[in-house]
């Protein structure tokens, strides 16, 4: 039984008001909230019970780089939602540019992270085992980065091979981009909390 012939895959259910993919995506995001929540919970517990928690002067996390990356992700969220809006307005070519922009911005985020943060820190000796702070820093940002990579893969799929679906069933394709967008905004949302927690607090 293929997904296309199952009811409420494309059109919303008359009573529940959603199409199945959107509900599924939100449920998945709820589980992701609990995943990152456990890491934030670990942060709270370890920090509150620590005799000493390194301040900004000890961690040397670059606020300008962090701010830049925050803005990069926010812009990528805008391009992502604009991609969906373009599809709703039947402007497929525009949507492809927006999706491509999202991927580029995501790659910028990752590369900045890798070259201007992880690598210098690693060389400096600030590795995961250095302190509880850095253990949490690497785990939190690392897991977040894995989620970004996942998002890049999905968006690239819809940009390239998956784009054939637009011709077959444009509404279905638009829905899938909407769901991808939900995931992507969530990744941005996590960073909106990670940035102040790790860099500023």
């Amino acid at each position, binding site marked *: 039984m293929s997904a296309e012939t199952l009811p409420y895959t494309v059109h*919303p259910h008359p009573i*529940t*008001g*959603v199409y199945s993919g*959107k*509900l599924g995506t*939100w*449920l998945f995001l*709820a589980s992701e*909230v*609990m995943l990152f*929540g*456990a890491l*934030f*919970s670990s942060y*709270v*517990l370890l920090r*509150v*019970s620590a005799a000493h928690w390194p301040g900004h002067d000890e961690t040397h996390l670059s*606020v300008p780089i962090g*701010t830049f990356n*925050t*803005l990069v992700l*926010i*812009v990528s*969220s*805008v391009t*992502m*939602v*604009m991609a969906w*809006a373009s599809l*709703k*307005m*039947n402007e497929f070519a525009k949507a492809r540019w927006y999706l491509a922009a999202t991927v580029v911005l995501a790659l910028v985020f990752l590369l900045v992270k890798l070259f201007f943060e992880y690598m210098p820190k690693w060389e400096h000796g600030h590795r995961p085992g250095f302190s509880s702070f850095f253990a949490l820093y690497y785990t939190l940002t690392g897991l977040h980065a894995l989620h970004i990579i996942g998002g890049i893969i999905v968006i690239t799929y819809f940009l390239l091979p998956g784009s054939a679906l637009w011709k077959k069933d444009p509404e279905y394709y638009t829905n899938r981009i*909407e769901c991808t*967008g*939900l995931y992507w*905004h*969530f990744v*941005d*949302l996590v960073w*909106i*909390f990670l*940035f*102040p*927690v790790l860099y*500023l*607090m």
Partner: protein
Amino acid sequence: MAGSHADVRKHVRTYLMVFGALAVGTALTVAASYVHISTGWNNAIALVIASVKASLVAAIFMHLKWERGVSIWWTLLICAAFFLVLIFLPVLTTFDLPRQAQHGMWG
């Protein structure tokens, strides 16, 4: 979610306005971190601004403002409740010590 072109064009304006708000919020967060009140208040301010930004992303970019699906609201409500439990209860447990640990054996 409204499907007509006119509606979506109106929303595009909203998206751009939210982007502006998020950028301002980011600048505010960074600026506030340089004004030292106390660790507690500084952290609270940072988290409040972050929560406002997150709410904007959720409401506008993630379309929650227009979301009719009740199942989604229930899911978020339940998730929020358990998220708070997960954040607060372990650390509260760590600090609720037996009487002896707090006051010593003869305290």
